[in-house]
């Protein structure tokens, strides 16, 4: 098993957390999210992001509203629901904890 094949599932699992973080910072539409992740280890595509956002919306973690744009059709702007904010806080806290565990163990 190559290193990459072990890293891919870690990134995949963390993508949802990062999307919640981005949406939690301010109301965004999909190209904003893609731009924010581009160039990072978590660079992703519409084909991945739209199904993920729709899952998060079904779980009542994010919601969107339509906003008119100067160019082209109206856009969906996403933001966190209260449940989404609570989950983001929990994930953030958990992430800090496992990060500490990972760096403490084996040293």
């Amino acid at each position, binding site marked *: 098993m190559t290193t990459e094949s072990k890293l891919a599932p870690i990134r995949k*699992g963390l993508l*949802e957390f990062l999307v919640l973080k981005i949406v939690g910072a301010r109301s965004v539409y999909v190209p904003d999210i893609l731009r924010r992740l581009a160039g990072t280890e978590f660079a992703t595509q*519409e084909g*991945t992001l*739209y*199904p993920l956002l*729709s899952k998060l919306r079904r779980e009542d973690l994010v919601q969107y509203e339509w906003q008119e744009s100067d160019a*082209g059709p109206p856009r*969906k702007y996403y933001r966190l629901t209260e449940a989404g904010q609570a989950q983001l806080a929990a994930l953030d806290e958990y992430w800090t904890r496992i990060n500490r565990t990972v760096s403490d163990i084996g040293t």
Partner: protein
Amino acid sequence: MQRLSVTARLNRSTLQFEEAAYARLAGYLDEAALTLAGNPDQAEILADLEQAIADKCHGRMATGPATVTLAELEPVLEEIGSVQVPGGAQAEPQPTRPTTRPLQQVSEGALISGVCQGIARYFGLDVTLLRVIAVLLLFVSGGGMIVVYLALMLLLPFAPRQPGSEPIRTIPARSRQFAGFVRSKFGAATS
């Protein structure tokens, strides 16, 4: 010679596509629809993707209305990527059951031997319903059901124990006690 083109309405935008490009686009959307089959938001995600494709095509064709060629469409689809269903640990439960599922007895959580549980798992039915039917048949058949049950009990192989798998249905403690009582009264032959 006139170049064949197709007008396609992508969500809220209308675009002209060269025939080859249109076929490629239809193929991409078909595949996306297939990947999203069973997803309650399938239509909405497809609409989002169509809009993203349309926006990107517009962005690539700076000079007014024109026909999207295959060469112009390919990088757009490349950028959007194939549809990936969010998965990982909490993948949504698959409603479809595996096609080749053997008919077996399931002894975990069984009341007698696990025949009803096995049949329930095979057909995707509620165990309790099957047990009720079995008991009714027992009376209607005038004892013939006992023979059928015993035959199934002897013939059906046991499903391998799966430590990780949840039992089909947890039996309430009281009916477990009752089953124990019945077994102690009527001998260990059925246990």
